């Protein structure tokens, strides 16, 4: 029944959305004649009610799907495909949008919700555009609901419901699944709003103020898209296990393209509102943003980008393609039809080296970037169609083509604040010339000193330094100017500046974030390091200044998968850093998921992947990747989001709301930062780390069971065999007879044995010692102090300390008598 109600809701929604479009259109027709203005208002009000109802019904349908997941309604095919009884609640929730049908339903709901908000809460300036906007938004919603209902139905029922579902794709079992798709969809769906308003503005010839009217919506969509892209990058980095964050994959590009055009729109809107023209540019940007959104969803759902033949497999592709053609054709035709109204709106550019010129260049660059990435994504298909040979544009191609364009963009970010307006422009440049030259030189020099010597990267660092200095100068000068008037403390002045000029300083923060991201991109893309290595248990290797020691392999069966992980200790020189535990999970159905282990740092990230191992776990193969400067990317991303949030933050009447909004934003940013750098990503710190062979063995004091205490220093002059064990550990008690035998052989030859018991109690230990006839001194490690100092990762472990107090041998796991004897013989010589 639950599924059937969902279907009915979808059907009714489709009917309402078509009615809303018709009612709004009728209202518009009637408003042309003054006598029927009342009836016009009636029709428009009815249309508005329909828009609200649509949002409510689609919300209810989504809620029903959510309930179906949470209550394990496996008679619904979609639920059975993506859920199971054992997966945790938060994953059941995110499973709603794990597949095509559910994600389309989410899209429909967001579309209806945004339409309701945009038309119902329209600002004064936008009010006159609402009727036509309602027509277009309702038609768009109707399209998506129709596609969902007839071609990709989430509520199809199974005639024989299974007892349990197939479970969620292991790759999607990550918190990123909760945020990444919804954020992206806020961006995609949000772009329909500016598009609809733009079309309304064209039809009604009210072209002047449309960008200002929907400024907030454009920002929301832009920020949502940016957040979705950043989350996707971090998710790929954390989970997908190839060490990168962006592969220029067609699906990734599908999200990047509308982001480019929307960024261009945001900048063009600034110019339009300053009465500098750019009307046609902005119209084109908004039209292509929405068209690219449709293109993106078409590409990811039809497989068309991979091969021109693939979309016949899913009939969805054809319908989206038709929608794109209709949208583009209709809007461009409308733009052409209204060209008279747009006649005097070409950009007023007073030369390239002016503010207008820079904005023009920015828009041009984003256009070329969009075209570059679009061509690259379509290149395989196009070349196959035209020449029969498929040319895949790989990451290298994209990097080479887009890299220089991004570099020029960063340069413009630096130039723009310097140029200012009019005569003051040159004075500004002159005043700040040492600041920016300083910036342009310090960064490359610092980079060169820390090992970055590639010429192109140094140029990139110089440009970033220049832009960073220019942007920071904006903040400093703003604070200084303000303090001249108000005499506030510097921090307070900065705060007031941010609070009162949110759009301007939000924008500068975004630029700052982008510059930091550029640093991260230069580091990771221009200094790639990847190495495959096979190690035996106990073997160490040196990689880029790190010493990696493969300790052992461990396996465990958790929920519905088999987890295998390796303990790899990481040292820099003699200092223990952490133990990385790269993991491989094998799920039923032979699906494997790699979970990389990460050691983050400012200069670089050490990234370890477990590739494979021999059956008995004595040898394992690893992929070691070092990502230079990658944390600048994530830091830049956070600052980018902070800037966007600042620009978006509405000025609210009540102080409390302001405080609440600010605190929530700050909390989210800190949460994101903590999730990235505060939480361990496959790394565990085992105390002070295991001492390396040749290092001085850490001293300790042990209270012996038979009374008295001993310390390692007391044993200088003798060889000490220090064995960490516990009576509840099966492999430990297995080796006890061997240890006793060797002890008896060597006790008069200057060798001492010492047993350190981990997390055990006196009586059980005593019985174990009696049972195995152990006579060498044994003590309890109260408070785990000694095991921490020795970085023990498991028991048993045996350390052999020579007469000078240095570690001569480390053995992880149970030791055989022969091995022990060999080591002792070697030392006694």
């Amino acid at each position, binding site marked *: 029944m639950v599924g059937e109600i969902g279907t009915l809701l979808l059907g009714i929604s489709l009917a309402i959305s078509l009615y809303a479009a018709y009612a709004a259109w009728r209202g518009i027709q009637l408003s042309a004649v003054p006598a029927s203005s009342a009836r016009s208002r009636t029709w428009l009000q009815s249309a508005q009610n329909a828009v609200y*109802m649509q949002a409510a019904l689609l919300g209810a349908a989504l809620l029903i799907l959510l309930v179906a997941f949470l209550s394990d309604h496996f008679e619904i095919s979609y639920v059975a495909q993506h859920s199971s009884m054992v997966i945790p609640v938060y994953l059941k929730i995110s499973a709603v949008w794990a597949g095509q049908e559910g994600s389309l339903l989410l899209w429909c709901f967001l579309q209806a919700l945004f339409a309701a908000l945009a038309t119902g809460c329209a600002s004064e300036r936008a009010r006159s555009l609402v009727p036509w906007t309602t027509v277009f938004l309702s038609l768009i919603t109707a399209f998506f609901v129709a596609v969902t209902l007839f071609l990709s139905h989430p509520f199809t029922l199974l005639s024989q419901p299974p007892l349990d579902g197939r479970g969620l794709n292991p790759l999607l079992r990550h918190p990123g699944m909760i945020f990444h798709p919804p954020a992206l969809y806020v961006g995609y769906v949000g772009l329909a709003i500016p598009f609809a308003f733009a079309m309304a503005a064209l039809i009604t010839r009210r072209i002047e103020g449309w960008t200002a009217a929907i400024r907030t919506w454009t920002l929301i969509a832009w920020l949502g898209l940016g957040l979705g892209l950043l989350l996707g990058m971090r998710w790929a980095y954390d989970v997908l296990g190839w060490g990168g964050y962006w592969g220029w994959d067609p699906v990734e590009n599908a999200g990047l393209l509308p982001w480019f055009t929307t960024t261009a729109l945001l900048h063009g809107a600034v110019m339009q509102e300053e009465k500098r023209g750019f009307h046609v540019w902005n119209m084109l940007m908004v039209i292509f943003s929405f068209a690219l959104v449709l293109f993106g969803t078409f590409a990811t759902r039809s497989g068309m980008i991979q091969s021109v033949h693939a979309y016949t497999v899913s009939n969805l592709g054809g319908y989206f393609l038709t929608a794109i053609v209709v949208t583009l054709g209709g809007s461009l035709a409308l733009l052409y039809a209204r060209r008279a109204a747009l006649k005097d709106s070409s950009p007023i550019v007073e030369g390239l080296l002016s503010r207008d010129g820079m904005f023009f260049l920015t828009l041009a660059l984003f256009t070329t970037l969009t075209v570059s990435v679009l061509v690259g994504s379509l290149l395989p298909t196009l070349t196959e169609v035209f020449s029969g040979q498929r040319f895949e544009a790989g990451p290298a191609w994209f990097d080479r083509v887009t890299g220089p364009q991004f570099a020029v963009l960063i340069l413009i970010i630096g130039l723009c604040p310097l140029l200012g307006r009019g005569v003051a422009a040159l004075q500004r440049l002159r005043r700040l010339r040492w600041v920016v030259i300083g910036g342009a030189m310090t960064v490359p020099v610092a980079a060169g000193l820390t090992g970055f010597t590639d010429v192109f990267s140094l140029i990139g660092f110089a440009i970033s330094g220049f832009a960073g200095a220019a942007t920071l100068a904006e903040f400093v000068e703003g604070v200084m100017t303000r303090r001249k008037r108000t005499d506030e403390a510097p921090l307070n002045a900065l705060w007031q500046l941010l609070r009162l000029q949110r759009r301007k300083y939000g924008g500068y923060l975004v630029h700052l974030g982008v510059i930091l991201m550029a640093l991260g991109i230069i580091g990771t893309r221009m200094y790639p390091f990847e190495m495959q290595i096979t190690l035996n248990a106990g073997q160490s290797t040196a990689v880029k200044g790190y010493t990696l020691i493969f300790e052992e392999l461990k396996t465990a069966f958790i929920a519905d998968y088999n987890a295998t992980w390796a303990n790899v200790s990481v040292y820099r020189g003699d200092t223990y850093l952490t133990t990385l535990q790269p993991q491989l999970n094998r799920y039923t159905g032979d699906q494997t998921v790699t979970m990389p282990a990460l050691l983050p740092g400012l200069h670089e990230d050490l990234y370890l992947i477990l590739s494979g191992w021999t059956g008995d776990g004595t040898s394992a193969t690893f992929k070691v990747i070092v990502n230079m400067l990658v944390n600048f990317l994530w830091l830049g991303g956070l600052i980018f989001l902070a800037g966007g949030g600042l620009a978006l933050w509405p000025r609210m009447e009540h102080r409390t709301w302001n405080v609440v909004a600010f605190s929530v934003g700050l909390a989210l940013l800190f949460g994101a930062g903590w999730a990235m750098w505060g939480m361990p990503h496959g790394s565990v710190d085992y105390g002070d780390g295991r001492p390396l062979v040749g290092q001085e063995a850490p001293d300790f004091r042990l209270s012996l069971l038979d009374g008295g205490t001993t310390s390692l220093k007391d044993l200088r002059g003798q060889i000490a065999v220090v064995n960490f064990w516990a009576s509840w550990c099966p492999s430990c008690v297995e080796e006890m007879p061997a240890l006793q035998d060797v002890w008896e052989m060597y006790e008069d030859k200057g060798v001492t044995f010492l047993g350190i018991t981990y997390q055990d109690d006196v009586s059980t230990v005593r019985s174990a010692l009696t049972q195995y006839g152990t006579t060498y001194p044994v003590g309890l490690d109260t408070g785990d102090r000694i095991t921490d100092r020795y970085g023990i990762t498991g028991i048993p472990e045996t350390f052999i300390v020579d007469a000078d107090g240095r570690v001569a041998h480390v053995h992880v796991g149970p030791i055989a008598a022969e091995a022990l004897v060999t080591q002792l013989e070697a030392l006694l010589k």
Partner: protein
Amino acid sequence: MSLGAIFVGVAVAVVTIAYIARPFRAAAMHTPASDVDRLIETWVRAIADVSSSTTRTGINFCPQCGRQVAPDHRFCPGCGQRLPVNEDVA
């Protein structure tokens, strides 16, 4: 389709149609949108009262709520106001 689903579906459809049609019902009852509108309506009605509340075409309007009433009605079906007896227009 199960009976329960049909029931819910019909209920939802009814509520939806009622909400969408609401502006039309309000307009038909001449429910003014705001105080100012209400004031204007009152004045218009007052003027109409002065000229005549019975028209040549045989369609009358209630002097209180302005609703259309048939010529032979003695009470307004909308608001219950007693209607003036029909006299031929002078």
